[in-house]
């Protein structure tokens, strides 16, 4: 029998590669899908970039804090688009009524998750790289100039986006397409709480505790420290990483539990609303 040894394995890079190939074909076949990846990040960056330019010319504090708005919006987009990239790839299977085919194939749930993580990186790169280059050209903001700090910011934000994406995918598997809205909106709950555009210190005490429980808060605080005080706060990044590992682990466990619940409730063969 062909290929028996490879399909017995508990984890197969071949099957992950097959799923990545599937999404590559899909993206290649649809230019609106590619355009959509760039459109919103570009609009956001332009709007905040011009606002930043205006503020720079009119306020001495912000003149010193050059780039915090545009930096915040670019990092926020990494968080938001990372989750969206994960969730949209997942939703493509629901929209295509292909989930039954995948769930019945030898593809393991964790291989599926890894393929979605890779696709979230690919989608993010397609959307964000042109936007960061335009930000450099138009507003003289060089995100890549952040160097190692950018790598630390990126790693923490993408980890959070994956954790949220995994959780949302599990909820959609369990509850059907009625839960699709979560994929588009859940991240906006984090927008005010993770202090993207303002420091944590403006929150009342109890809300600060909530904010510090969320890994992106450390990233945005770290970004402000870097851009305003020119200090890289490794302590903040390590704390974010620890929280991310915790949340990522929880999200994988919850995803597997929701998948089991979907099999118990028959949701996998009822992929409608």
């Amino acid at each position, binding site marked *: 029998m*062909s290929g028996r040894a490879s*399909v017995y394995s508990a984890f197969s890079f071949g099957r992950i590669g097959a799923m990545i190939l*599937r999404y590559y*074909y899909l993206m290649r076949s649809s230019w609106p899908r590619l355009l959509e990846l760039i459109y919103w990040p570009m609009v956001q960056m332009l709007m905040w970039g011009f606002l930043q330019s205006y503020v720079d010319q009119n306020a001495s504090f912000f003149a010193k804090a050059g780039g915090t708005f545009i930096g915040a919006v670019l990092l926020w987009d990494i968080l938001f688009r990372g989750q969206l990239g994960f969730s949209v790839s997942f939703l493509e299977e629901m929209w295509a*009524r292909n989930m039954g085919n995948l769930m019945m194939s030898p593809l393991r749930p964790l291989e599926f998750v890894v393929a979605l993580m890779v696709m979230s990186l690919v989608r993010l790169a397609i959307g964000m790289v042109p936007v960061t280059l335009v930000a450099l050209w138009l507003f003289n903001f060089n995100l890549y100039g952040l160097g190692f700090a950018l790598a630390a910011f990126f790693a923490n934000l993408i980890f959070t986006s994956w954790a949220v994406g995994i959780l949302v995918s599990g909820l959609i598997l369990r509850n059907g397409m009625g839960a699709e809205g979560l994929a588009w909106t859940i991240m906006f709950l984090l927008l005010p709480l993770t202090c993207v555009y303002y420091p944590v210190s403006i929150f009342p005490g109890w809300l600060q505790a909530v904010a510090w429980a969320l890994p992106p808060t450390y990233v945005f605080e770290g970004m402000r420290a870097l851009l305003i005080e020119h200090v890289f706060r490794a302590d903040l990044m390590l704390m974010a990483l620890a929280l991310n590992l915790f949340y990522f682990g929880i999200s994988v466990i919850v995803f597997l539990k929701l998948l089991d619940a979907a099999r118990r409730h028959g949701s996998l063969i009822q992929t409608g609303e």
Partner: protein
Amino acid sequence: MTNDVAAIAADRLVKIYKGGIAVNGVSFSLPQGSITGLLGGNGAGKTTTIAMIMGLVMPTSGQVSVLGVDMARQRHRVLHRMNFESPYVDMPMRLTVRQNLRVFGKLYGVDDVEERIRELAEQLDLVEFLDRPTGKLSAGQKTRVSLAKSLLNKPEILLLDEPTASLDPDTADWVRGRLETYRRQRHATILLASHNMAEVERLCERVIMMKRGKIEDDDTPQRLLERYGRETLEEVFLDIARGRGEAREAAQ
């Protein structure tokens, strides 16, 4: 794995949803190389039974095994040896037929995917639209593509949920012919859920009749015809669906 192991064995399968009991104590055992029809009206429990065999739905109680593997707990040990086709799932529409078959071939660990696609394209008459988007095909062509996907890994167990639904009689007959050939060549086990009695009569050596989640009867088509004193399985089906007396009255 020896031939002594049942291809599919269901043991007192029960599935209860919030809305009621979908499957209620179903037991059967299918030997390897057999072809069996699962018949029943809407809501009889056929699709839920097949979904439990595939491991997509967990039984509330009871057990189902495929080639000796418990599908509720260890389905990944055997999924590469089986495949399915159902009108309730689609192949991704934007991908071409070749791209879809390539992706699924890789998922199933088929060694030489391109060669296998070429073989199937010839056998199932897909050659001329291999590079066309799947969504642009007619219903009959899509069914052939789904059939190609279900045969990609040369499955030992093939589960078919209404494989000829929405096909014209000619294409449906052609599909039945391909299934017969595949089973003969590969000694595969086929379980076929269908509303089409003529299809079951032609293909199946055994018929399991379901009604309201239970097995109402289970025998060869010939013995069922004799037992119910009928000439076609359709009449037997009506006897079971309506209750014997009512159907006889209606026939008279």
